[in-house]
């Protein structure tokens, strides 16, 4: 019997290594897998690369991972919001590498990583400093930027419901980056509000099919920054 359910966040994040590239779902606090990130921070890992939309805020989640000194590099579109204290401190001290990527390009690069597409072209960023050093190419008279796939060693995401195979649904805009990150990593770990019996989810309304999910942990409520 397939059973991807773990008993705790700690068990769910076992095996992640120093130096791992970790894809993190969420947009602001919405859909951020705080408990899994806290569990990673508790492991005291080092030199992680975090790929996410933002740089976290408050003392849980990405914020905790940053404050705990686990992160060498942050790849994101919008590192700071009010409350991004840990990030701001590291940035001021030049104690973190930062790669700013347009939001849609992050999503597409991670999807490409999951889709077996090593590179693709976008108009986004052409003619701006974010295209500096990137390969440019014209198609039909317009300039495009070549972007490379991002592949995660691990994805940590938050979903609403799961079954023991790892099929997932999300709550409204808490969906955001989560299904995208789920596709892009070797090991995808989801914290969910509720586990339901196999067959308890309508096949038509599953957003992340089980093939993309390796571990599930039920954490009703979960910690939050606010």
């Amino acid at each position, binding site marked *: 019997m397939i059973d991807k359910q773990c008993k705790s966040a700690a068990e769910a994040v076992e095996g992640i290594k120093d130096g791992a590239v970790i894809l993190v779902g969420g*947009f*602001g*606090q*919405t859909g951020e897998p705080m408990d899994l990130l806290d569990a990673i921070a508790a492991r005291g890992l080092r030199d992680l690369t975090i790929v996410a*939309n933002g*740089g976290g805020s408050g003392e849980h989640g990405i914020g905790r991972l940053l404050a705990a000194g686990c992160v060498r590099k942050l790849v994101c*579109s*919008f*590192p*700071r*919001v009010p409350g991004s204290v840990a*990030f*701001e401190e590291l*940035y*001021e001290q030049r104690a973190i590498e*930062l790669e*700013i*990527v*347009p*939001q*849609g*390009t*992050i*999503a*597409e690069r*991670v*999807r490409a990583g999951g889709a077996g597409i090593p590179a693709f072209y*976008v*108009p*986004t*960023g*052409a*003619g*701006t*400093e*974010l295209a500096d050093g990137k390969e440019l190419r014209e198609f039909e008279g317009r300039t495009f930027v070549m972007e490379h796939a991002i592949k995660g060693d691990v994805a940590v995401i938050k979903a609403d419901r799961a079954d023991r195979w790892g099929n997932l649904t*999300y*709550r*409204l*805009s*808490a*969906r*955001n*980056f*989560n*299904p*995208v990150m789920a596709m892009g990593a070797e090991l995808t770990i989801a914290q969910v509000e509720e586990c339901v019996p196999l067959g308890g989810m309508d096949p038509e309304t599953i*957003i992340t099919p089980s093939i993309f999910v390796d571990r599930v942990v039920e954490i009703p409520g979960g910690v*939050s920054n*606010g």
Partner: protein
Amino acid sequence: MADGLTRNQMAWRLGRDIAEGSYVNLGVGIPLLVLEHAPGGREIIFHSENGVLGMKPKDETDGILPDDLTNAGKQPVSLVPGAAMFHHADSFIMIRGGHVDIAVLGAYQVAENGDLANWRLPGSPTAPAVGGAMDLAAGARNVWVICEHNGRDGAPKIVRECTLPLTGPGSVNRIYTDLAIIDVTPDGLVVREKIETLSLEDLQALSGAPLTLANGWRPLEAPDL
């Protein structure tokens, strides 16, 4: 000097120009005020890059947890009938693929050729942050900028050439300020509306690029808000 519109009035005025049936993305800051002041009796579908089509201002009675549904500025919103949810990659298909009719964005500078700078202030100690601005600048069918005509230091935001790092070249179609509505055209910047009591000369003095007044220009007006 004539009084300009408030931010709410600017947002209200921009809203009047959105045709029924338009799909409209609102950037953070003043653009999001358009949601509050959208014209009634007209179906406009507001897109948020975090995977929402059909948002409306937060209705506290909708039973949705504030953290489960936000706009691009991470503020709680609600849904209209006909709304749809999707993930970030699909959301940016809509943006990059030219499916969004209008992106409303803030600006530090807009050049007469439509170049937009709105994401980074060199020399700022804070980290740069681009969000979806470059995707919107590159992908939306129309980019409307909404911003004060001049910065806090009085410097014009409408310029011949952007001196700040670009968000996108040649992206902007129209500019809504507290003083005027200006089209970016192949023939330069054309004032379609301006505060009635403000002369073109005075408006020009507040601007960093040459303006021409449209035939049939109209007074820029908005109700008290």
